[in-house]
């Protein structure tokens, strides 16, 4: 309720509605930046400091978004950083505000441009006749696969995990099949089996953290560890605005931002069991973990719009970005 109250104070209902609309077709970071730009346009602040306070308050509200908190936070931080830097360059408020808005437009386009760039950089890693294993549903991965198939005319097959509970694997499968790429959907639990015939693993990420590790949809970490054990290359495709100044050491470090699942399971294939048998008891609880942290040692390369990076190079880029 406290957050609700905060929301009402800092962001109008329609701004929030716009934010959720942006979220539907944009990654969290870009959606957040769009909201912040709208805020600047409608802001009544007359000083940079006032503007910054307003933006910060709005950013704090946006970060409360459950599913994409980390990605939104990194987008907001990046934007705030940019505002501070611009403020240092311009002494006049109006000139500064103008510059920020101009740059904001650039940010808006950034998302699609980054995706194209990544697709171009990453697609050559898919060789003819290869089998690519992927999990979840990532816009960047889709763009990359489509680029490889359509622009580079690569012939390859895709192994997909079904991504249980969200069922996004099926959506992705349909998208790829429609584009003429042969797809096989496998069980989430069958990744170790499926990986044996895969040549490489390619996943998206919600956030790329400071040490080059990634926070992404649950199941990515186990896939990375199995790929590491099988000596299969594990690649991540992510835009640079997903780089976050966040340094998890354990899985539990990202739990704070992981929503606890509602104690309900998707109906098993065999049919609907009676509700009573599923009800939680003091000794029986359900937890739905939606994301995990993959350590950099399991990642071979990251395809980003800054180039193809090793995990250790991510920190270098972050230092340059935030220094």
């Amino acid at each position: 309720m406290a957050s609700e109250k905060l929301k009402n104070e800092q962001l109008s209902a329609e701004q929030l509605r716009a934010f959720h609309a942006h979220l539907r077709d944009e990654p969290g970071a870009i959606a957040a930046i769009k909201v912040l730009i709208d805020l600047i346009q409608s802001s009544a602040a007359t000083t940079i400091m006032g503007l910054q306070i307003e933006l910060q308050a709005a950013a704090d509200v946006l970060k409360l978004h459950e599913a994409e908190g980390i990605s939104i936070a990194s987008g907001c931080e990046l934007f705030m950083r940019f505002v501070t830097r611009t403020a240092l360059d311009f002494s006049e408020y109006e000139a500064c505000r103008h510059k920020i808005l101009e740059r904001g437009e650039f940010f808006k386009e950034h998302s699609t441009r980054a995706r194209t760039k990544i697709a171009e950089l990453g697609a050559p890693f898919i060789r003819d006749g290869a089998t690519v294993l992927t999990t979840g549903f990532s816009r960047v991965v889709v763009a990359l696969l489509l680029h490889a198939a359509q622009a580079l005319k690569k012939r390859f097959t895709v192994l997909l995990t079904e991504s249980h509970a969200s069922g996004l694997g099926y959506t992705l499968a349909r998208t790829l099949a429609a584009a003429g790429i042969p797809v096989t959907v496998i069980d989430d639990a069958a990744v170790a089996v499926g990986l044996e015939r895969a040549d490489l693993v390619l996943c998206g990420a919600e956030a790329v953290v400071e040490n080059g590790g990634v926070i992404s949809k649950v199941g990515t970490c186990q896939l990375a560890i199995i790929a590491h054990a099988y000596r299969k290359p594990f690649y991540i495709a992510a835009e640079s605005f997903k780089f976050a100044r966040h340094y998890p050491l354990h899985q539990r470090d990202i739990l704070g931002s992981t929503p606890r699942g509602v104690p309900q399971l998707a109906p098993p294939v065999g049919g609907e069991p009676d509700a009573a048998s599923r009800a939680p008891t003091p000794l029986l609880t359900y937890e739905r973990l939606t994301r995990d942290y993959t350590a950099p040692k399991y990642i071979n390369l990251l395809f980003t719009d800054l180039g193809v990076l090793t995990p250790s190079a991510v920190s270098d880029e972050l230092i340059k970005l935030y220094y």
Partner: protein
Amino acid sequence: MELSPVETPVGSVDSAQVDFQKVERDLDAQSRASGEQRTFLKHAHSPPSPSALPGGACSPALRGAGLGARDEGSVGAVPAPMRLPVQARPSDVISGAAGSAGSAGASADAPDAPPAKKALTKAERRELQERQRAAKAATAGAASGGKPAPFGSKQASTGANASASSASEPPPVPKQHDTTDAAKLRKQRLLERTDVQKAVALFAHLPQYEREKSISLPAQHACQIHPVVARLGLQYAEGVIQGANARCVAMLNAFKAVIRDYHTPPAKTLNRDLESRLRPQIQYLVDCRPVGINMGNSITWLKATIAKLPAHMPEAEAKEALCAEIDSFIAERITLASAAISALGASKVANGDVIVTYGCAHVVEEILLSAHSRGVSFRVIVLDARPHWEGRALWRRLVAAHLHVSYAGMHALSYAMRSATKVLMGAHACLSNGAVVSRAGSAIVALCASRENVPVLIACETYKFAERVMLDSICANELGDPDDLVTVRPVRAAAQTGAAAATSGAALAAGGALAESVDGGANVLACLTDWRDVSTLRLLNLTYDVTPCELVTMVISEVGMTPPTSVPVIIREYRQDTISAR
């Protein structure tokens, strides 16, 4: 008979002794007491001859002897150990014989040889070598009588002219494994320090000196050394000032005093002359104890700052500006940096954490205290090891702040790691290849942590980041006093129950008992006091070790939390900043 001074003490005529006794008296009373104790032990266990030690007058006499010995030449009253020829040492004979058997050109790399030696023909070299071998054999025969080599015998190192003039005398035995680096170091030395007698061959390239009662400065250098610096050097040598930050701050403050008392000579400019004035001060400090990487960084910074001063600046103003710069360096890079690190590091301490730490790093202590003051509930396991038992000081302070502390020896490492969720350690330096130089023992803690999949966090200020690369802890390291390994502090009954794995309450009680025995100094056990007499035994007291990059999860510096691979990036960005800002 073997006590007769074969080697002429170099510089005995022109080197007046600077009396540092007064300075020494100012030193911390406790450290002086322990120093005396140690020196007394050394002398007592190996008397060179009954006449050399004036009976009864132990420490004052020794103190006098150490100071005045070289002055008085070969007057009978001088205790001989100061000038015993190096050939008489059984240890050297043994290692020398082993070495020369293997290498035909052993004498060619003798650093102590006069430069003219290069011109020798092969035949001459051969002859010289034969002669040295014969000399060695002769002295070995003499030494086998069982006369122990007395402590403090002077090296042949200064004997450049001595060996040149010693056609008839046996030439000094070339020190085994004495590389050119070591020779160069020796040449730069201002102080006449006594090289350690029984160096470990693998580490012979590192400077290591006997712990001396007093350190004498030859007259030609004496006037150059500022009294504050002179005092500081002795404090370094005695170990009164320890810890990387404390040593660095003390050094910078001493340099401030030097700068304040500096007057530009006529026809010279401050920004060019001051550095040459500082150089002997730095060299003197290096002679007392090798400087750490962070101190080297600070010295580089200071030199650059001096050079950047405008040439036309009035002297008083320039001096003030420099002192202000030093003050802000201390504040920004050391004091505020560790405050920032403690805030950052504390954010990484979560409820329910079990944090393993080793040694006693100031930043680590601050991180833990700051996390505790934020209301995080966690447990700390302080690991500790000989010879300094630095962890005791740490847990005492942590317990005083009501933290939940366990204290364990290094042998309990793998047990402690089982329950650990994080390892948090300080560092002496972070290197370009991501390796971390830290208190000896840190590497095995990190190794064990990595085996147990426990993240290793290193807290380190950026002024300790170095551009160099180290692959092992052999090439560059510091050798501590081997005698520190000899003395064993007794584990009393109370401590026995407490020290192994004590929780706060019990540990406090045990600590009290320990403190008593340590401070009292009466119950110090010395189990290996005669190690110098055991020809096959050498003691190695390494100060640092290198933790490779792969074992370090995160480096916490004042610029943020970064993986160790980003150390060079931070160095680069920082340098750009200092260039553009000034």
